[in-house]
């Protein structure tokens, strides 16, 4: 029985990169976000949409391809990064892949995300896989360094082979409502990135209101962001579904006005399969199935992968797996 009233219209137009637009302060001022209503929608998505059995297994495989496998710790070393990259090369145990009979699908994470000093290490470790390396940049996680330093940092990472740059915005600009400054800075970052894609981390946990988050999202998109991303993972509040709804509705609005599709990346604290499935359902509902592709959606996460592996194994065997049975991320 076909339960859907409407099938998804699969629109397979080639992705067009955001060219950037002039700062439209009138648009910024038209933004309205009602927190309670956003919470109601976000809070019910997990109950409105669920996937079971084969559908869940397929969604979880897709989820793996959407992960930016990440290590962003002060004690990171080359060895640590190499281990992460090794996991990226083989995100799933071979026996699981075999039993799922999906060897022909390309199940690899969306990117590996590291600090600048490890870009080269990661690029080398991932050679031949096609997995891009993302570098967090611009004085991550606080963003409070001289603009020249920040631009240089981007340039160095790009020179080292990073294909994606996750920049952080200065939260103070948002809190002060200095949209021009934010716009100018992100635009400069975008220019410095060149062909590398730019993800703008808003630090949503420090932006105080959903309206601020929405406006900051818009300004970043106008300035040329390819992705907007919630958090560094270092704020007290990380990604959540409410903030995500705010940001993806701005993405939708931006697409309605410009025709340009911007990617979304929630990051920090997404550790469980159920969380991942809820995010995916929210994306599918609000933006369409089309958005559930690595060039438009990423999870900033690492332990999530282990949980997905356990869930996949459970789906195959009917018994619960333990984390130590999955090769460590």
């Amino acid at each position, binding site marked *: *029985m*076909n*339960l*859907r*009233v*409407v*099938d*998804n219209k699969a629109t397979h137009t080639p992705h067009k990169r955001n060219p950037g637009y002039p700062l439209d302060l009138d648009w910024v001022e038209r933004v*309205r*976000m*009602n*927190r*309670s*209503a*956003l*919470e*109601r*929608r976000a809070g*019910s998505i997990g*109950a*409105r*949409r*669920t*996937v*079971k*059995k*084969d*559908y869940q*297994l*397929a*969604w979880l*495989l*897709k989820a793996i391809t959407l992960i930016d496998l990440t290590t962003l710790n002060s004690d990171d070393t080359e060895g640590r990064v190499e281990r992460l990259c090794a996991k990226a090369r083989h995100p799933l145990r071979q026996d699981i892949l075999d039993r*799922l*009979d*999906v060897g*022909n*699908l390309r199940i690899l994470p969306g990117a590996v995300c590291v600090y600048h000093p490890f870009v080269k290490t990661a690029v080398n470790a991932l050679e031949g896989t096609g997995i891009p390396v993302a570098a967090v940049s611009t004085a991550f996680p606080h963003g409070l360094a001289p603009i020249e330093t920040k631009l240089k940092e981007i340039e160095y990472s790009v020179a080292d082979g990073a294909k994606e740059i996750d920049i952080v915005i200065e939260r103070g600009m948002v809190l002060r409502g200095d949209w021009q400054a934010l716009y100018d800075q992100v635009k400069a970052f975008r220019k410095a990135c060149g062909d590398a894609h730019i993800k703008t981390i808003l630090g949503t946990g420090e932006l*105080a*209101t*959903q*309206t601020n988050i929405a406006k900051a999202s818009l300004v970043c998109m106008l300035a040329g962001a390819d992705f907007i991303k919630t958090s560094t993972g270092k704020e007290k509040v990380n990604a959540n579904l409410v903030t995500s709804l705010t940001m993806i*509705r701005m993405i*939708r*609005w931006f697409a309605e006005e410009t025709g340009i599709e911007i990617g979304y990346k929630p990051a920090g604290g997404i550790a469980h399969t159920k969380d991942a499935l809820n995010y*995916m359902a929210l994306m*599918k*509902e609000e933006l369409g*199935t089309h958005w*559930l592709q690595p060039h438009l959606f990423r999870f900033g996460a690492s332990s999530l992968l282990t949980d997905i592996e356990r869930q996949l194994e459970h789906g195959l065997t009917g018994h619960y797996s333990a984390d130590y049975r999955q090769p460590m991320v």
Partner: protein
Amino acid sequence: MNKIAQIFQSLDYGPAPEGPEQANAWLDSHSRKFGHFIDGVWTKPGKTFSSDNPANGESLAQISDGTAEDVNAAVKAARAAFKPWSALSGYERGKYLYAIARAIQKHSRLFAVLETMDNGKPIRESRDVDIPLVARHFYHHAGWAQHLAREFPDAVPYGVCGQIIPWNFPLLMLAWKIAPALAAGNTVVLKPAEFTSLTALLFAEICERVGLPRGVVNIVTGEGDTGAAIVNHPDIDKIAFTGSTEVGKIIRAATAGTGKGLSLELGGKSPYLVFEDADIDSAIEGLVDAIWFNQGQVCCAGSRLLVQESIEERFITKLKTRMASLRVGDPLDKSIDIGALVAPVQVERIRDLMKKGVAEGAEVYEPDGQLPARGCFLKPALVTKVSPANTLVAEEVFGPVLVAMSFRTPEEAVALANNTKYGLAATIWSENINLALDIAPKIKAGVVWINGTNNFDAAVGFGGYKESGFGREGGREGMSSYLKPAWEKDLKPAPVAKAVAAKPANPLDASHLDQTAKMYIGGKQARPDSGYSRPVLGPKGDLIGEVGDGNRKDIRNAVEAARAALGWSTTAAHSRAQILYFLAENLDYRRDEFAARIKAQTGEDGAKEVALSVERLFAFAGWADKYDGAVHNPPLRAVAAAMVEPLGVMGIVAPAALPLLGSVALIAPALAMGNTVVLVPSSQSPLSMTDLYQVMETSDVPAGVVNIVTGDSVALAKTLAEHDGVDALWFAGSADASTMVEKASITNLKQTWTSRGLNYDLSDRRFEGDYFLAKATQVKNVWIPYGA
């Protein structure tokens, strides 16, 4: 490609069915055939009908069609149980309610699955909305039971309550009916809707298992005839009904003159206002909760979209996009937004209404796609190109059909919102709190949701204005619907006023010169339309004056004037108080004259009555700024402001006795609360009130706030009762005339109070307080969620 690889590409949701096994096991344990639950035992099934699963047409069980004898037995059991049940301490009754709440939570999934199978609503709704609200309702009322004596000190339960509930929220409506009734100490005979009896029967089993005393809850299943047997049963003290306005009117007429308590929760065509400064995406998502919740089979469904012109095009485009991702199908599937309608007859009804609307020029948008091959399914529909005259705008569709219109200004939004006979709920979307809180009081509806929709809570009253019914469910207002003043049962018949025979004399010879008292309409003295006068006789039959002989047209004019004066309701309570105080002061200044007039008309000592009248005006002047609302704290980051609002235009037909106080005691509370009044003073002794309009003129009472039509009380009461521009009618008079008034009130379901020939002694100080204040007001609950 294997299946997983295929899904990896399509990312479809796939089926996610909730298992029906336990619900089926419960049905099997009753051999899928049910009797009634009367006096704590299950009767043998009688003549039965089938209860079907609307999602697939399969029969779930056979349900007994209750007969008059069944109803009789149930009422008898409830009557027998009433005394011991009401004699229990509130704490003891509360413990039973608590036990029921616990039991419902324990078996919540069984209830949810059974509800979905029987009704067709998505399991997500029965699981996440209906059943949790049911448990919450019993928990909340467990508390009321215990605090009753303190909170309602002079109130007693009605006795046996007959309760008739609809099929759209079968168990939730049962909870809304049974929890407050039991908390107050009533016993009940409840009839579930014929389409959806199963969860009520499961509930009966819960009552059995928690050891609820037998006879306290009786469930009689059946169809319309069973309901009629309950409504007409002479030993039932109160009827509570939720359902269509059409049936509500039949019940109002059937109970007229019986003295039965009555609360009606009826239909709606609730407006959904979206202003240009709203969070538009959230407002669209709100519409999903408003009109596609429970397939739109919700009495308070936001079914009339009113969107500001400046954003209309964008809004409608976005809405259509949103509609396309709604999933329609098997209600037991966890990822379904729209399940099955309750029965084939409803699907047909809705299709017919749609055809009619389209024939009248409406345009219908429905998303593409297939509906399930069988079962009662409809696509979500958006109807545009309509005006208020279109059938689909005027009539309650009770289905997944949204009509959309636009407005230009806040004022026009309010006018369109109120352009309906209904007044159940309204939704307002605006990020400007000034605008939202300006609009909320202007919409004639019992519930207003700001930036949200379809919020419900046991602590927050729910119920309608206008033809959406009267009485409230939930909160303090809901409790008071199941209680009445203890003294009412001791009322004796009113002494019948002796008709005095006029002394044979030429009627043209008035005893004084200038006693051609006029009527008072719109702040002006008015001659009667009829051109006739009525003599006013003294106690010995001597002609002491004349008044105009009012007729239908005078009432019409008076109601027009009263409607035009409704700005009184938004006059500050302090100002209303000042005017009432001033009126009292000026009356007191002329007390001797008024006393003499009373004496002339009745032969009684008038000084006492004047003094009491002044005191009564003082009392209600004092109440004007004190009888006010409350702020509730529902389990949501929101405040729900319970606003006490006037009813509007009130017709007041004063008793024959007490020519001054009889009118003053009734108009004072009405005026204090902001109503405007069309008063018919004592037919026999109208001169005190025609004298009073001169005092009003000197007391700053605005024109049209009080209008006085003299004449035959009963004839004028009938015109008032039938007038759709009159929102409420109080009538003091005989039992027969009271019945007439209540029967005639059904045209617009105005709220009535009648004395039914009983001796309501208005000089008693018990009438200085909330007895009439409550009847002069209705509570509007405004939900205001917040959060930066």
